[in-house]
């Protein structure tokens, strides 16, 4: 690593693939075209409904070397969720490969070959568990067929076990490496003929102690993230981006910049008018011999910008606008059942509350970075991206070349959280390389670039009203949700939340209430609105789960009892009947909203957390439940609020029902992480705008939870699934939404103070 002349490129996944597949010894090599489902006109769900669907061809995903090394392709992006471990592990288990002899290579962006690669929406395991089992089962059967042929015995007499095939009758064995050549000649079995292992034969699937494939490299500093890519003769670039959404470059002076030692060149990139889509922001580029020189050079630029349409954007004023519309009757009616307004007017008692949730930036620990070069009319990019195919397509459009002329190699991601789904920074790198005549260039985003130019989590005002009868039963529910929509990033003038956003916990509430009215007044966007881990579930769950605690308090009932009663009897609800036609893209038959499971996680978590236990003054427990990404999560947080109004969190319990658990250890770690990210947004994180520009630009202004404020204990309780044939739920995101409301409900129980806006910051100081 210390030798500057080392061919650094060898560290890169793409090269490993080339090496792995092209060189001798690897025989299950070149794949057939993607085998997609037959295209019928019916609505497609789950993995069938995703762009470029799925592929389960063993020739695409598995190769075996004569020394027995089994190479498995990871086609989804690794950003901390463990997918590079978990999906290949499914293949290895199903094919009876020994994990010690497995090597993982990362796929480049090529969905025709690998199926959908957009690592987003908590979908990887949910959509690819079965395809990866198919891959593994097919590979195992090909190895068995090869052995049977070599021994001239019936295939039924042989069995693959722990990296070899055994003929029990004769006691003969052949290792996978010895069988590789022959196995590659065997026909790939049809899916309907695949024989799967039974759950009791699993070696890795569902086991508790699987180790991370990248664990050693991470601990020893040998991994390659997008930020770490190095090519021969590479230069470095940073970009001075237009400060507000829609600003453009007027003029600049680079005299001082060019005096900075190491600065090579200054050039400009065009800005594109809103809507942003995945287009690069444009601006002034400083190219230098190292990152530091480029950053110093950027500081010395003097730039004049043309003010765009969003220079007036001011979070304090915008908040008033949002809240005014959320309090006014009307707006697009999203769901209407019964006579909510009448019922509220005639109710024995009512309750009203308004909640506010600010913009957030994903701020993955690794800021965006992309390295590009153009050789022989092919633009090759190395980067940390959640969505490499979108990178290929967007870069091709901007370079005006065919997608085949763009290669996107996926490195490890230093976090993603939705930010790295948007390939604006890939396009930037490609355009800079083009301007440099194809020279290799690493475009680095500083933390300031990252925080000021996120695709921000939206800002929301949520207005709720409920009516009760004399016994305190809920008779009416009114919810008005107002927030700039993600659609505004893709279409001019989009002002209403999309079905996807509304389906994140606003319309699909399974509450047993006769009169329900849900409205969505318009809101304009003044910055790039994007998605952030768990997306609109954050404001929706915060408002609804806080409100339910307020309702319980108002009617003098225990929060848990009240919540269970509100959900009502055990039933499976067709999401469409709740006006949710999206349902996370999943089939309503396979994934109905199941109130038994929702109540199950509430009962489990309250039991494990000893709900209602006696706590000292200043301490309290809070509860929240939320269904998202077809997974049920209930959370109990215990807080301590000291005399200065500072909140600490001694313990969080989380119950998760996500169906079958393929890699329970990574499920736990995702839920732990969600608790901490949820604590961040509850306690301290907020992006505000002034004159169209973010007030925060680094971790001093944009504060996230650190060790001293982190929950001391997090206990994750997984609801066992009946078997591995049940539909899988998402894991990466659903842990997030209940955290903030559970914290605020706990604070209420500890102090009597109700938090209705995030972040909490100094609100508890007296």
């Amino acid at each position, binding site marked *: 690593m210390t030798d500057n002349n080392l061919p650094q490129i060898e560290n890169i996944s793409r090269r490993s693939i080339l090496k792995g597949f092209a060189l001798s010894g690897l025989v299950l090599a070149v794949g057939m075209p993607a085998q997609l489902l037959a295209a019928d006109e019916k609505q497609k769900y789950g993995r069938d409904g995703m762009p470029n669907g799925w592929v389960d061809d063993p020739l695409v995903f598995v190769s075996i070397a004569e020394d027995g090394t089994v190479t498995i392709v990871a086609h989804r992006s690794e950003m901390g969720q463990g997918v590079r471990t978990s999906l290949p592990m499914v293949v290895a288990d199903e094919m009876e490969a020994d994990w010690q002899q497995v090597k993982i290579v990362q796929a480049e962006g090529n969905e025709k070959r690998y199926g959908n690669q957009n690592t987003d929406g908590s979908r990887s395991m949910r959509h690819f568990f079965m395809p990866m089992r198919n891959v593994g089962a097919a590979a195992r059967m090909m190895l068995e067929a090869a052995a049977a042929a070599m021994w001239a015995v019936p295939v039924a007499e042989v069995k693959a076990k722990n990296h070899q095939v055994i003929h029990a009758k004769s006691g003969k064995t052949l290792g996978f490496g010895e069988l590789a050549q022959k196995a590659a000649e065997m026909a790939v079995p049809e899916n309907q003929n695949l024989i799967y292992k039974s759950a009791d034969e699993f070696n890795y699937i569902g086991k508790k102690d699987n180790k991370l494939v990248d664990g050693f490299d991470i*601990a020893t500093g*040998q991994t390659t*993230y997008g930020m770490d890519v190095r090519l021969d003769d590479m230069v470095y670039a940073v970009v001075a981006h237009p400060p507000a959404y829609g600003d453009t470059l007027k003029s600049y002076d680079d005299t001082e910049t060019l005096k900075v030692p190491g600065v090579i060149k200054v050039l400009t990139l065009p800005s594109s008018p809103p809507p942003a889509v995945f287009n690069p922001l444009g601006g002034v580029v400083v190219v230098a011999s190292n*990152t530091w020189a480029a950053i110093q050079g950027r500081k010395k630029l003097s730039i004049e910008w043309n003010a765009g349409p969003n220079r007036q954007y001011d979070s304090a004023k915008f908040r008033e606008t949002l809240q005014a519309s959320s309090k006014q009757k009307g707006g697009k009616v999203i769901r209407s059942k019964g006579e909510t307004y009448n019922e509220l007017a005639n109710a024995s008692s009512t309750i009203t509350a308004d909640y506010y949730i600010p913009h957030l930036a994903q701020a993955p*620990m690794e800021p965006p970075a992309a390295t590009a070069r153009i050789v022989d009319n092919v633009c090759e990019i190395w980067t940390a991206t959640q969505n490499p195919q979108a990178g290929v397509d967007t870069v091709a459009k901007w370079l005006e070349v065919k997608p085949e002329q763009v290669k996107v190699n996926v490195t490890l991601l230093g976090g993603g959280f939705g930010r790295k789904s948007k390939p604006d920074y890939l396009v930037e790198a490609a355009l800079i390389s083009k301007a440099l005549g194809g020279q290799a260039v690493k475009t*680095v985003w500083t*933390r300031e670039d990252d925080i000021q130019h996120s695709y921000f989590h939206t800002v929301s005002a949520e207005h709720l009203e409920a009516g009760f009868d004399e016994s305190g039963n809920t008779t009416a529910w009114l919810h008005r949700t107002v927030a700039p929509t993600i659609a505004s990033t893709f279409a001019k003038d989009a002002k209403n939340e999309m079905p996807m956003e509304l389906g994140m916990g606003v319309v699909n509430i399974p509450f047993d209430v006769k009169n329900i009215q849900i409205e969505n007044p318009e809101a304009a966007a003044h910055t790039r609105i994007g998605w952030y881990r768990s997306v609109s579930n954050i404001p929706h769950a915060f408002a609804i789960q806080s409100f339910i605690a307020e309702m319980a308090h108002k009617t003098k009932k225990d929060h848990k009892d009240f919540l269970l009663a509100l959900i009502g009897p055990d039933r499976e609800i067709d999401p469409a009947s709740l006006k949710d036609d999206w349902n996370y893209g999943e089939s309503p038959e396979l994934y109905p909203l199941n109130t038994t499971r929702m109540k199950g996680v509430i009962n489990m978590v309250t039991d494990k957390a000893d709900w209602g236990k006696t706590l000292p003054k200043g301490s309290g427990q809070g509860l929240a439940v939320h269904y998202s990404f077809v997974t049920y999560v209930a959370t109990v947080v215990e807080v301590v609020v000291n005399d200065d109004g500072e909140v600490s969190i001694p313990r969080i319990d989380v119950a998760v029902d996500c169906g079958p658990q393929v890699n329970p250890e990574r499920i736990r*770690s995702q839920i732990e992480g969600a608790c*901490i990210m949820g604590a961040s947004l509850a306690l301290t994180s907020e992006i505000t705008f002034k004159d169209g520009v973010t007030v925060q630009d680094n*971790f001093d202004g944009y504060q996230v939870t650190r060790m001293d404020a982190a929950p001391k204990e997090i206990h994750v309780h997984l609801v066992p699934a009946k078997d591995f044939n049940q539909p899988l739920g998402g894991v990466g995101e659903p842990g997030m939404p209940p955290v903030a409301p559970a914290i605020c409900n706990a604070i209420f129980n500890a102090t009597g103070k109700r938090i209705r806006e995030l972040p909490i910051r100094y609100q508890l100081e007296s």
Partner: protein
Amino acid sequence: MKLTINGESRQVDVPADTPILWTLRDVLGMTGTKFGCGKALCGACTVMLDGQPIRSCVTPISAAENKKITTIEAISEDKVGQAVQEAWQSINVPQCGYCQSGQIVAATALLRDNPNPTDEDIDTAMSGNICRCGTYTRIRAAIKQAAQQGDK
């Protein structure tokens, strides 16, 4: 300028105010030390300078003259560092892993100074290191496990 990095003497030709971070990463090609904020706010760039943890993103290379820089790439040459790396792997601490070079260097520096840290000691030593993925409970557990290792 002459430097000692991970026990090797190295020669670099950069302006004296260039931070150690960018000298390591861009000039010497040692990318184990990460860039997270550039302002001493996140700890991703933590290295040791004569055994003390420092934020390499704000420390000029001139400050390292005649001193020893130790980075994640050589942390295993130290018994404590090795125990920390082992604990990290056995507990599966990392999620994305990007912050973990800095976390491991900071934890190693803590345990070298204080072989049996309390929770408060851990808070003080580690709160400069952000983990956006939220691995703090496991980092705490791994530090305690590594500390026990040292007891044996």
